[in-house]
């Protein structure tokens, strides 16, 4: 059934592909222009073997961005202006070669392996730099690496591919966020996300979840904002890892920068016009679900939940919405939906798995690009439509992207405009977490093992459609179909990211650049909760309107010394200023109780209310004015020194402290230049680098003073409360200092490459909220306090294991990132217990509170909660046969993994390439509330639990069930059951007391009034994933010529195909979201992660 449904959906996708193709063809026929261009063709070959060099770079010296690469046979074609004079050829390991054109149209070149390396990377301020001159760590990814894999959130495509970058995805629906940190977390307040910069302009990457918890909801993951960047439009991604690389983007860059450069018309310069088409279809299935048991159904202590088989009436307290009931052995039992008839009690083994469907993502991109002598443009349109694994969840995204460049006044004036318009929307974003009103995962905790999911499809009670839901037991949970079909969370977003860039070269040595960038976001969200929803009995409707704008005005003056051959010292000086402004305006209107109109379907609007509509309207403004300068000194192609300085003035700090300066210095020494290496030397390149940097940081607006917070009216009475935050008029900027040292070593003609970095960062004077005693009238006060150090090692080791021209090539890359974030100091009073996130599950009144805390001298991000009471030999202490939970909370370990590693293998054989990536995270702890609660509810076997060697199927109470003359159930005890927990008795000796397994599991997981024993479901979060498998075939251009194609490639891509972990029930790659921050180490009823398979076709004309 599910399969058929999905096939139909799929065929719809195919139809839309066809429509694109028609559009494309039309464009092709229209698009024939001519201009003063000349075409040069040729072959690049190895001087010794005579074989063609694949993927050698060929570009025009007068315009390095005009370039192409050679094909599999070493052939190239490049369009150049008629007056072009010199071509430049480069090939990794072969160095650089400049060849005058001299009016030729055929230029063949031979190249020899050399130790001269020239790789250009994009760095801060969008300045392209020769990589060897950089004194800090930068790693670059080709746009292809993200576009072929086509994750909806581009961050996920980076996982495992860059050393030191820690990416945690989740399964939370089509819009799921990704938690991206570079070199670890460095903040007590959760501000550790890497900064995204698109074409030189920072863009906002917030979570935007205002007003958590209204109408019973936990935070719904509408996605972090950077995910709108469309992978088809990405030319390259540079990751600047430390603050040294990024001091010039200001405060926000302290956590590293992900620099995205988008494609322009110059990326396709083989001929004037190029049209390309990319189409990807992805299928998504569940990767991991808990190991559900199918031997016992709903009830408690072996008895069915409802004595009379119908609905609980309050006469007898038998409300066990749990699977501790009778055997699923076919015994006739009066059930909730059997009209008081006794029908066989049997398992519905795949009820939860069957609820999920195959998700489909179709992404289609068409672009046309053109370049001429004086200008270029690229126009691209992408349509992404995604349907999640949770029924009735989806995402659509349309991206229109344009880039136009023009060179005027003899190339002295350059103008470029990039504009990206993204329209995204969803009819329903699934919620996860411990949330009864809209999380299906919450419902699965208690879902009866005997109820088929199809039996629930009719989710309204007959005759009460739209008013009263129908569900399998009245007490605890919602019908999952009601949640996905009625309790929807939808959104529509418009986002414009644009920039204009004007540069003028006064002389070859002196230039000016002005840039303006704007990131404008406008989003509406609607949250519907149907009447009869648990905790929202009257139904509710809420609308959010979120608008956000950031603008950056920036100018830059550059001067450099003459590039004369033989001049040993080269100097580059740049200076500029930036004005940044942020404006946000949120409007949250909440109709907490719908007015019901009999059994008519509910009207979800703000005006259809039987209460006041509650409105919140938080607005915020922030500005930073900056001046900055950068000096680069190069000596003899050997030593490179970079010096930077920036001074920020932030609106958020007190006037006395709002101006702060921070410098950086980095040095690169290309030692191999001075070693006079022979061609046969095993060492082919050696570079050492050192960097020191400081970054200052400000805070959020309006934190300096004390305010009163508006509250809902009481009748006609206005209400304001003293704001529980004590402001601080003496705040100072935060400081991060960092030091890094690294080496880039290459051996055997560059076939073995090692890039290693050691870094040490210290963030101090952090602006944090310190908790204070509630008896003081405040809950928190703002202060400069706390020091966190991050120390770590990044290693990128890559090798070309096999290299044969026209034969098999095998590249292998290993990326390792090791980081330890340690809390060096905390203020008095909270040294042992600074709550980074207090109480992870505020919606659960029964919880004793699980916290993420900082402890002086320990790893950042410690998990804290109630634990087992243990004897001196670490055995769990039992009382009356039940494990004893501690009175006081303890710290049980940090979420931090000690190693993140990825191994990427690529094989190419002529036109066929095959790659696979294993990616793993080693160490760190995770608490799985899904596992704990599913176990207390008797729903899973617990056979895969490394902590508790007890199956939930052991020792259950077993009754024979019949009905007496009045129809009341008669229970005859067959087996009293009982389990004996491993451990000792409180009075000494081994625990020998047998207890009911339900009681045991309840006590073990600390359920009840003091829910959550953190130790019981704490696991080593280590996992390894087969993250990516990719097979691509590039059709030969000769074969395609007749068909009108210039290039055609097909790729099969699989993601998250295999998961290896000891964590039961869940995929440990997950996080929770609380108060707008990502919290690693805690999992609570998250949606299952998914496995993806896809096919990607790209064609150019």
């Amino acid at each position, binding site marked *: 059934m599910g399969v058929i449904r999905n096939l139909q959906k799929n065929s719809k996708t195919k139809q839309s592909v066809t429509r694109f193709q028609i559009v494309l063809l039309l464009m092709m026929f229209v698009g024939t222009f001519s201009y003063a261009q000349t075409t040069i063709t040729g072959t690049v070959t190895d001087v010794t073997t005579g074989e063609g060099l694949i993927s050698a770079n060929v570009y025009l010296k007068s315009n390095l961005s005009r370039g192409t690469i050679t094909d599999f046979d070493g052939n190239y074609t490049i369009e150049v202006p008629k007056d072009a004079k010199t071509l430049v050829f480069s090939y990794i390991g072969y160095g650089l070669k400049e060849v005058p054109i001299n009016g030729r149209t055929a230029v063949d070149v031979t190249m020899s392996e050399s130790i001269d390396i020239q790789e250009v990377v994009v760095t801060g301020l969008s300045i392209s730099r020769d990589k060897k001159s950089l004194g800090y760590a930068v790693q670059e990814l080709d746009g292809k690496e993200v576009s072929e894999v086509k994750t909806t959130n581009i961050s996920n495509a980076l996982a495992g591919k860059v050393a030191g970058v820690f990416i945690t995805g989740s399964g939370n629906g089509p819009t799921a966020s990704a938690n991206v940190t570079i070199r670890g977390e460095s903040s007590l307040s959760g501000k550790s996300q890497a900064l995204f910069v698109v074409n030189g302009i920072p863009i906002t990457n917030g979570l935007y979840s205002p007003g958590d918890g209204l109408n019973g909801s936990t935070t719904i993951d509408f996605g972090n904002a950077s995910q709108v960047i469309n992978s088809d439009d990405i030319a390259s991604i540079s990751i600047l890892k430390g603050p040294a690389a990024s001091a010039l983007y200001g405060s926000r860059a302290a956590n590293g920068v992900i620099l995205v450069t988008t494609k322009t018309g110059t990326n396709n310069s083989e001929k004037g016009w190029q049209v390309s088409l990319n189409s990807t279809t992805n299928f998504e299935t569940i990767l991991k679900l808990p190991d559900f048991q199918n031997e016992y159904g709903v009830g408690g202590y072996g008895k069915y939940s409802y004595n009379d088989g119908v609905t609980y009436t*309050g006469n007898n307290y038998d409300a066990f919405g749990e699977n501790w009931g009778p055997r699923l052995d076919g015994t006739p039992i009066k059930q909730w939906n059997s009209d008081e008839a006794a029908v066989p009690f049997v398992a519905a083994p795949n009820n939860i798995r069957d609820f999920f469907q195959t998700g489909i993502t179709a992404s289609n991109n068409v672009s046309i690009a053109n370049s001429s002598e004086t200008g270029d443009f690229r126009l691209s349109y992408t349509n992404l439509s995604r349907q999640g694994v949770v029924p009735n969840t989806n995402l659509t995204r349309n991206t229109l992207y344009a880039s136009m460049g023009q060179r005027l006044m003899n190339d002295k004036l350059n103008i470029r405009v990039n504009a990206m318009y993204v329209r995204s929307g969803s009819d329903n974003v699934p919620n996860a977490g411990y949330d009864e009103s809209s999380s299906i995962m919450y419902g699965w905790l208690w879902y009866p093992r005997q109820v088929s999911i199809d039996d629930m499809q009719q989710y309204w009670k007959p005759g009460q459609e739209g008013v009263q839901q129908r569900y399998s037991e009245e007490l605890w949970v919602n019908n999952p179909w009601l949640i996905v079909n009625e309790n929807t969370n939808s959104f529509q977003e418009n986002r414009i990211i644009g920039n204009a860039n004007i540069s003028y070269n006064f002389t070859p040595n002196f230039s000016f650049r002005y840039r303006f960038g704007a990131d404008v976001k406008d989003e509406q969200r609607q949250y519907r909760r149907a009447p009869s929803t648990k905790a929202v009995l009257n139904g509710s409707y809420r609308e959010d309107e979120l608008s956000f704008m950031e603008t950056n*005005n920036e100018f830059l003056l550059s001067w450099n010394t003459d590039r004369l051959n033989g001049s040993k010292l080269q100097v580059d000086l740049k200076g500029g200023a930036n*004005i940044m402004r942020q404006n946000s305006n949120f409007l949250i209107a909440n109709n907490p109780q719908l007015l019901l109109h009999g059994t008519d379907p509910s009207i979800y609007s703000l005006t259809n209310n039987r209460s006041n509509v509650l409105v919140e309207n938080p607005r915020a403004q922030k500005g930073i004015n900056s001046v900055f300068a950068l000096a680069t000194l190069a000596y003899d192609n050997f030593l490179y020194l970079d010096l930077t300085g920036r001074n920020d003035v932030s609106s958020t700090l007190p006037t006395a402290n709002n101006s702060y300066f921070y410098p950086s210095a980095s040095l690169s020494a290309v030692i191999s230049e001075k070693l006079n290496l022979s061609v046969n030397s095993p060492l082919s390149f050696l570079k050492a680098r050192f960097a020191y940097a400081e970054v200052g940081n400000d805070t959020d607006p309006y934190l300096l003073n004390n305010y009163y917070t508006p*509250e809902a009216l009481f009748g006609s009475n*206005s*209400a304001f409360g003293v704001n*529980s935050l004590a402001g601080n008029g003496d705040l100072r900027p935060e400081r991060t200092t960092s030091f890094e040292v690294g080496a880039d070593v290459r051996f055997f003609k560059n076939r073995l490459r090692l890039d290693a970095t050691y870094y040490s960062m210290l963030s101090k004077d952090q602006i944090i909220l310190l908790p204070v005693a509630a008896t*003081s009238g405040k809950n928190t006060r703002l202060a400069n306090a706390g020091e966190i150090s991050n120390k770590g090692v990044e290693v990128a080791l890559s090798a070309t294991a096999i290299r044969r021209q026209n034969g098999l090539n095998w590249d292998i890359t290993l990326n390792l990132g090791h980081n330890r974030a340690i809390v060096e100091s905390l203020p008095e009073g909270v040294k042992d217990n600074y709550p980074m996130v207090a109480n992870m599950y505020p919606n659960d009144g029964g919880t004793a509170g699980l916290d993420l805390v900082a402890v002086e001298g320990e790893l950042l991000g410690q998990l804290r909660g109630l634990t087992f009471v243990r004897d001196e030999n670490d055995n769990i202490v039992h009382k009356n046969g039940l494990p004893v939970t501690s009175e006081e909370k303890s710290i049980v370990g940090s979420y931090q993994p000690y190693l993140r590693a990825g191994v990427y293998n690529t094989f190419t054989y002529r036109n066929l390439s095959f790659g696979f990536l294993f990616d793993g995270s080693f160490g760190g702890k995770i608490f799985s509330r899904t596992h704990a609660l599913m176990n207390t509810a008797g729903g899973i076997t617990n056979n895969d639990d490394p902590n508790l060697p007890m199956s939930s199927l052991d020792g259950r109470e077993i009754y024979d069930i019949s009905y007496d003359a009045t129809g009341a159930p008669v229970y005859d005890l067959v087996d009293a059951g009982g389990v004996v927990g491993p451990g000792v008795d409180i009075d000494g000796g081994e625990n020998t007391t047998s207890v009911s397994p339900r009681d045991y599991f309840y006590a073990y997981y600390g359920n009840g009034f003091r829910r959550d024993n953190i130790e019981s479901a704490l696991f080593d979060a280590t996992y390894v994933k087969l993250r990516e498998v990719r097979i691509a075939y590039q059709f030969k251009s000769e074969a395609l010529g007749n068909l009108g194609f210039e290039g055609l490639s097909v790729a099969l891509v699989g993601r998250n195909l295999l998961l290896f972990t000891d964590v039961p029930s869940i995929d440990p790659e997950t996080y929770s979201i609380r108060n707008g921050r990502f919290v690693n180490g805690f999992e609570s009823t998250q949606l299952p992660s998914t496995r993806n398979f896809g096919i990607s076709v790209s064609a150019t004309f």
Partner: protein
Amino acid sequence: MRNNTIKILSLIAIFAFSSCEKIEDLNKNPNEPSVVTASVLMTSGMRTMGNSSVNQSFLLGNNAAQLTAKTLRTEIDVYNWNAFPVVWDAMYSGLTNIIEAERLAIADGNEQMEGVAIVMKSWAFSVLTNAYGDIPYSEAIVGVTTDNFTPTYDAQSEIYNGANGLLAELERAVTLLNGSGLIEGDIILRNNAAKWIKFSNSLRLRLLMGISNKQDVSAEIAALASSDLLSSNTDNVTMTYTGSFPNEFPLLPLKIGDFDAVALGTSAYDVMTGYNDPRLTRYARPNDGDYTNVMATNFSGAINGSESASACPKNGSRLGVAYYDYPNQTTAAMLEIDRAESIIMTYSEVEFLLAEAALKGYTTGNIEAHYKAGIESSMTYNQVDLAPFGYADFEDYYNTSGVTYDEGIDIWEQKWLALFFHGLEPYFEVRRWLAESNNDFSAIRFLTPTCQNINDNLLPVRFLYPGEEQSLNNQNYTIAIDNLGGNNSFNAKMWLLDF
């Protein structure tokens, strides 16, 4: 050429940097004021504490006093109390706004408003000190106006008897309430100074009775008995909900399962069925939903105690229609009665206090007259329907049901029943009565030790200080713990129980 360039650059510079505003101006908060009136703070503080009072009844007070019983998560009933912070946090949060309102009222010279703030805060502090013992009192809420975030704890004896203690403050409040000014933002007694005077006196009466085992309170109680006290149900100190979210009875949004985690207790069931008490259909729902069938068998009581399969059955009737709406079942509107309010103090309680005062010889009042008025006003307040129970009127009920006054314990029994949903007051009273009875449950005929409790049949006598106090106010917390005998124990006797 060069000129053009300069023109272009100047234009850009003007365009880009001409709109520079003063950067500090960006940090003016457009969302929250830094000045407000006392009235809006008063509304906020009253709502917070009013809501808290309902939750205190539902989760703690009613269950600890065995009026109701937990059917799930029975830690309160089995005397396995932990450091739940709900009472502490909510009351200090409400106090923050009340004390800030008091400060503004003083600045405004508004004596009546100041008086209201003093009565409200005295009530809140009395709940806190009765629950915990020593608490931050004189320095509480200092963090709003100073940089002191670690208020000292005051000894309970000082909180009651000190120069600025509760008893003195309530007396001062009456003077202020007779003074100048205007009450605004009062969502409890609707800006009525006369009612606040009655409440102030009545609260003083309650507090004096609470410490009557510690010191001679006879003169003060005698004086109060002839002062203005709550004298009818219209004087009741309750917060009436508006019925619209978020100003509705706090239990209404609960899941059915969470609401059903509390059921009518066996102790209350036994007493009410024993007297054929018409409040039965108000405190609980008939098990079959039939309000004309008031047979005892149509109701049931859950036994307070351990949550296990059979030893302590939990088959209690659900709580009454005023407290919750069930789908497809009778509602308060259908019975034409009001939804529940948040109760801070009622006239009925005052009558029982006066009955006890007369019984103990503090006054010369008529014990039975006060006792009877206490029962009658409780019945009226609960909008009982006497007819299904076979009574013509209250006199008929009083004379025939068996509740007629006989001995002192009758006062406690009827007061206990009347204190249903009166915050923590039923627990405080049961605790006092047990203390006066040498902690012997058998001396209090309507109570029993709870089923399979873990505290040797001893009702815990205080709440544990919340864990945050230990880390955030350690120095002062340590002194408080030392004064308690070195242990944050629920069996440690606070000053007023130490007799």
